[in-house]
C-alpha cells in the first residue's frame, strides 16, 4: 500500500468535504492511502509550509492551490503534468466542463487536477434593498445602476454604505477590466493595468469612496471587515467570491439575494474563475500513479456534488449537475446559484514564476492609495504597470 501525503489549506472553507472525499477513497480501495493534512489558513501559509517541506526533503505528493500560486509551481518545474493522469480516466474526463478545465492549463498542459471553481457574485442585503425602495429581484447590472443603488442604500455619513466591489487582489479588478475591454497583459506583452479601462474603473471606485457610497479598506483588515460590514448590515451590496456564500448567509438575520457581477455600462460582464485544484509534486512514477488515482476521486460526480453543496462553487463535473439525486435538486432549491454559474468566465491571470505575490501585494497597496485619494488613478496604475513589467522581466 502506498501512502501519499496531500496538503490543503482553507480548512474552514472546504476542509470537511475534502476529508469526506478522501475517506471514501481510502475505504474504496486498498492500494493507496491518502494522508490528508489540513491547515486552516490562507493558501499562502500553506505554500510557505510546502516550501519548508521541499527544503527539508519531505515534499508532499500533492498540494491544493488556487490560481494565485499555480504559476509558481509550474514555472519552477515542481508541478507535474496531469494530462496523462486525466487521460487514464477517460470516462471522468469526458464529464468535465472543458471551459472551467482550461483554467488549470498553462500552454496547453494540465498542471492541476481541478476540484472546484468559483466565480464572483453580487451579494445583496434584500431587506435593505426593500427598505431603500429598491427591488432585490432586479439588481443593478451596470455601473450607473450600481452607483444609483449604492447612493440609495448609503446614508452618506460613513455609517452605512451601499457597496463594496473590490478586493485587495486583482480578482475583481481583472473581471471589471476584462468586462470593459481591457486586459492584464496587452498584445505587446506589456502590462495593461494602466490602460484607460483600468483608470476608468479606479476613478469610478474612487468616486464611490469619496461620496461615501463605498468604504476604503486596507489589505490587512479587508477580509474580516468586508464580511463583518455585510453581516452587520453596514454594506448592502458586496461583490465577492461565491465561495463565501455559506458563511455569509449563515450568520445574518436578513434575506440575502444574489446577482451576477455588474459591468461598465455598455459592456457584458466577464468574470474571473478562481480555480481550486491539486498540483502533483510527486516525481516517482509509482507515487505519481498513486497520487493520480487519489486525485481522480475528486472529480467523480459524487465528489463534485458534495463539493458544490459545501462551497457554492460551479460544478466541474457536468454529470453531477445533471443527476437529480446529486445536484439537480440542489439547484432547484438554490435558484440563486444558477445565476452565478451562468456568468461568462475566464481564468484569473497570474504573473509567471515567483512574482505573483509581490505583484498582488503591491496592487492592494496601490488600489488602497487610489481609493483613499492618496494618489491619482493614473499615477497609481502607472506605478503598478511599471512594477508588473519589471517583475515579468525578472522571471
Amino acid at each position, binding site marked *: 500500500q502506498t501512502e501519499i501525503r496531500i*496538503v490543503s489549506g*482553507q*480548512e*474552514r*472553507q472546504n476542509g470537511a468535504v475534502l476529508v469526506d472525499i478522501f475517506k471514501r477513497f481510502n475505504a474504496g480501495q486498498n492500494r493507496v492511502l491518502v494522508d490528508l*493534512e*489540513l*491547515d*486552516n*489558513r*490562507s493558501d*499562502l*501559509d500553506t505554500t510557505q*509550509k510546502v*516550501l*519548508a*517541506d521541499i*527544503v*527539508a*526533503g*519531505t515534499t508532499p505528493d500533492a498540494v491544493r492551490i488556487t490560481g494565485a500560486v499555480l504559476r509558481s509551481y509550474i514555472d519552477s518545474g515542481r508541478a507535474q503534468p496531469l494530462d496523462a493522469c486525466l487521460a487514464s480516466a477517460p470516462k471522468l474526463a469526458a464529464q468535465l466542463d472543458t471551459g472551467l478545465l482550461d483554467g488549470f492549463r498553462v500552454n496547453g498542459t494540465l498542471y492541476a487536477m481541478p476540484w472546484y471553481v468559483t466565480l464572483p457574485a453580487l451579494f445583496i442585503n434584500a431587506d435593505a434593498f426593500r427598505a431603500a425602495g429598491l427591488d432585490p429581484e432586479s439588481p443593478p447590472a451596470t455601473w450607473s445602476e450600481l452607483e444609483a443603488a449604492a447612493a440609495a442604500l448609503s446614508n452618506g455619513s460613513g455609517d452605512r454604505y451601499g457597496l463594496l466591489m473590490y478586493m485587495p487582489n486583482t480578482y475583481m479588478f481583472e473581471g471589471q477590466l476584462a468586462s470593459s475591454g481591457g486586459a492584464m497583459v496587452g498584445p505587446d506583452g506589456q502590462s495593461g493595468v494602466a490602460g484607460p479601462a483600468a483608470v476608468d474603473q479606479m476613478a469610478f471606485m474612487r468616486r464611490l469612496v469619496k461620496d461615501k457610497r463605498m468604504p476604503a479598506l486596507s489589505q490587512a483588515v479587508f*477580509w*474580516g*471587515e*468586508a*464580511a*463583518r460590514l455585510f*453581516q*452587520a448590515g453596514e454594506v448592502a451590496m458586496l461583490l465577492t*467570491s461565491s*465561495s*463565501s456564500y455559506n*458563511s455569509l448567509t449563515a*450568520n*445574518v*438575520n436578513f434575506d440575502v439575494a444574489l446577482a451576477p457581477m455588474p459591468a461598465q455600462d455598455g459592456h457584458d460582464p466577464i468574470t474571473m474563475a478562481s480555480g481550486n485544484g491539486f498540483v502533483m509534486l510527486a516525481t516517482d512514477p509509482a507515487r505519481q500513479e498513486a497520487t493520480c488515482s487519489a486525485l481522480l476521486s475528486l472529480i467523480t460526480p459524487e465528489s463534485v456534488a458534495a463539493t458544490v453543496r459545501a462551497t457554492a462553487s460551479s460544478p466541474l463535473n457536468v454529470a453531477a449537475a445533471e443527476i437529480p439525486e446529486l445536484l439537480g435538486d440542489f439547484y432547484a432549491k438554490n435558484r440563486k446559484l444558477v445565476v452565478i454559474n451562468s456568468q461568462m468566465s475566464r481564468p484569473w491571470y497570474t504573473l509567471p514564476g515567483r512574482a505573483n505575490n509581490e505583484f498582488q501585494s503591491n496592487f492592494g497597496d496601490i488600489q488602497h492609495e487610489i481609493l483613499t485619494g492618496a494618489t491619482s488613478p493614473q499615477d497609481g496604475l502607472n506605478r503598478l504597470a511599471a512594477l508588473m513589467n519589471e517583475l515579468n522581466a525578472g522571471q
Partner: protein
Amino acid sequence: MTTHAGETRSRIMQAGIHIALAAGAVFMLLPFWLMLRTSFTAPDQIFSGNVLTLTHFSLDNYARVFAEVPLLRYYLNGFVVVGTIFLGQVVICVPAAYALSRLRFAGRELGLWIVLAAMMVPYHATAIPIYVLLSQFGLINTHGALILPFIGSAFSVFLLRQFFLSIPQSVFESARLDGASPYRILIHIVFPMARPAIITFGILSFVSHWNDYFWPSFVLRNDFAATVPFGIVRFLDQELGADYGPQMAAATLTVLPLLIGFLIAQRQLIAGIAMSSGQVD
C-alpha cells in the same frame, strides 16, 4: 490637629492612586472585556447593538469550541510542551548561567557575547533553517519540534545571570573551600538559591510558549502535538474573515490557565525578579 490633617491627606492620596490605576486599568482590560463579551454573545448578535454591553448571553460559542476543537488534547499538549521546555531550560540554563556569571575560564566573555547575541536574533529570521534541521531528525509534527529550539534559552540565562551576580561571590568561594566541586556547588548551593529566579523565568517561559502561535503553526501539520492557540486559529479564515464568537471563546479558554497560574505565583514572581535585578539581603 496635625495628625488628622496628615492622615486625611494621605487617605486622599491613596484614593487618588486607586482612581488613577483604575483609569489605566480600563485600557488594560477593555480588550479582555470585548473578548469575554464576544465569547458569551450568540453569533448573530455579535455585531448588533452596543458592542460594550452583554445583552444576549449564550454559551453557544463555547459549545462550538468544545465540539469542533479537541481542546483537551491541546491543553495536554500545551502542558507537556511548556513543562518540558521549562525543565529543559532549568537543566541547561541554570548551570550555564552559573558558569557564565561566577566561574572564571578562558572564553567566558565570548560565551557571554554569544548568549546575548542569540537573545537578540529575531526568530523569524532563522525559522527555515531550523525547520530543515528538525525535519532531518524527523521531528516535524512532534512535540520535539516545539520544545528543542527553546531549551537553550538565552533570555533565561540572561535573567539568571543577573540573579547570580547579585549573590556575593564569597558564598561560592566558601563552598569551594568547604571542599565542593563545581558540580556539587551547582546542586547544593546554586539550585536551591536560584529558586526565586527559576520561578520567575518559569512564569515568563510558560507564558510565552503557551501563547506562541508562530512556531507551532510553522512546524506542525496536524493536531497531534498542537498547543492551545491552534484552537483559536481554527476559527479564523483569511478569506472569509473570522468566526469571532468561537474564536474569542477559544481565546478565553487559552488565557484561563495562565491567569490562574499567575495569580497563584504572583508573589514569587516579584520576589524572584527583585533578586534578579539587585540586592539580596
